[in-house]
């Protein structure tokens, strides 16, 4: 049995928390629980997931208010000492706002909320998140966002490329993201933020299980 203890943070407005719970608990049979954003600690969890949704109604900027939730301080502490943190969609936006990941997510180039399955390439499979994928493997995952257009300055992009921090890239750019970026990890390689939703593609019953290996990978990397 895996030693993974997954904590899924619930903000007011999170709406993919139960999907992540379903994958971790019901499909992978992991010790999984929800963490309300007001609590000051992530308890005994060794994997933290910031799920998708519209925390605080996306007021001001996506993720800007959630960043100051009680639990975030403990998540920053956890991440800084190497703890595994996965941010999906709104979770990615929160990680950028918090400064755990570089850059920002701005409005999609075509101004539309895009909800569809898109082709991606696994750009780096030497990460605790993607080692169960092949390098340059083509997978399809759903995206559902209005602000998924990844932006950073030139220097940051050069650094992201040089230190192999880009994990997923869109095969066809849906939202205007710089360098087709769909997901990046931090320098210490323990924090991943991605706009696509692996939790919505983790069961063949639902048509696609390309996302399952990501959860399986992080669960098995906990020793």
């Amino acid at each position: 049995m895996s030693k993974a203890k997954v904590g899924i943070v619930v903000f007011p407005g999170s709406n993919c928390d139960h999907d992540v719970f379903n994958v971790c608990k019901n499909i992978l049979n992991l010790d999984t629980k929800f963490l309300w954003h007001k609590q000051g600690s992530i308890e005994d969890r060794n994997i933290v997931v910031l799920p998708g949704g519209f925390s605080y109604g996306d007021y001001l900027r996506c993720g800007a208010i959630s960043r100051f939730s009680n639990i975030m301080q403990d998540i920053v502490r956890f991440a800084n000492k190497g703890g595994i943190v996965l941010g999906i969609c709104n979770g990615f936006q929160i990680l950028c706002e918090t400064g755990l990941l570089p850059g920002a997510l701005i409005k999609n180039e075509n101004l539309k909320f895009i909800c569809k399955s898109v082709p991606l390439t696994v750009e780096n499979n030497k990460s605790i998140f993607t080692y169960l994928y092949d390098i340059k493997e083509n997978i399809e995952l759903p995206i559902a966002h209005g602000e998924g257009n990844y932006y950073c300055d030139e220097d940051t992009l050069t650094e992201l490329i040089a230190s192999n921090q880009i994990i997923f890239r869109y095969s066809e750019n849906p939202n205007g993201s710089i360098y087709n970026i769909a997901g990046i990890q931090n320098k210490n390689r323990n924090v991943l933020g991605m706009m696509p939703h692996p939790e919505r593609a983790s069961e063949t019953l639902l048509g696609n299980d390309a996302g399952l290996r990501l959860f399986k990978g992080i669960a098995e990397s906990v020793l």
Partner: protein
Amino acid sequence: MYKAKIIITYRKSVLDPQGKTVENSLHSLGFSLISNTRMGKYIEYIIDTEDKNEAENIVEETCKKLLANPVMEDYSYKLEKVEQKKNV
């Protein structure tokens, strides 16, 4: 007391898709002299102090910490002296 009027826009180096779309619309309405359209946010609040320096510091700090994201946004602001309102 001071009233702060804060304007936040995408940085010049960031493509502003909303500004661009608004500008296209303005052009199709015939306003061909318009260019460099940027869209942003306006935030105002009252600061309970008579010290302008203190008010400025508060505005700067709130912009840096929360109201604007320096990765992609610039902010500018004005401070106006306002009379204390009586509680109704």
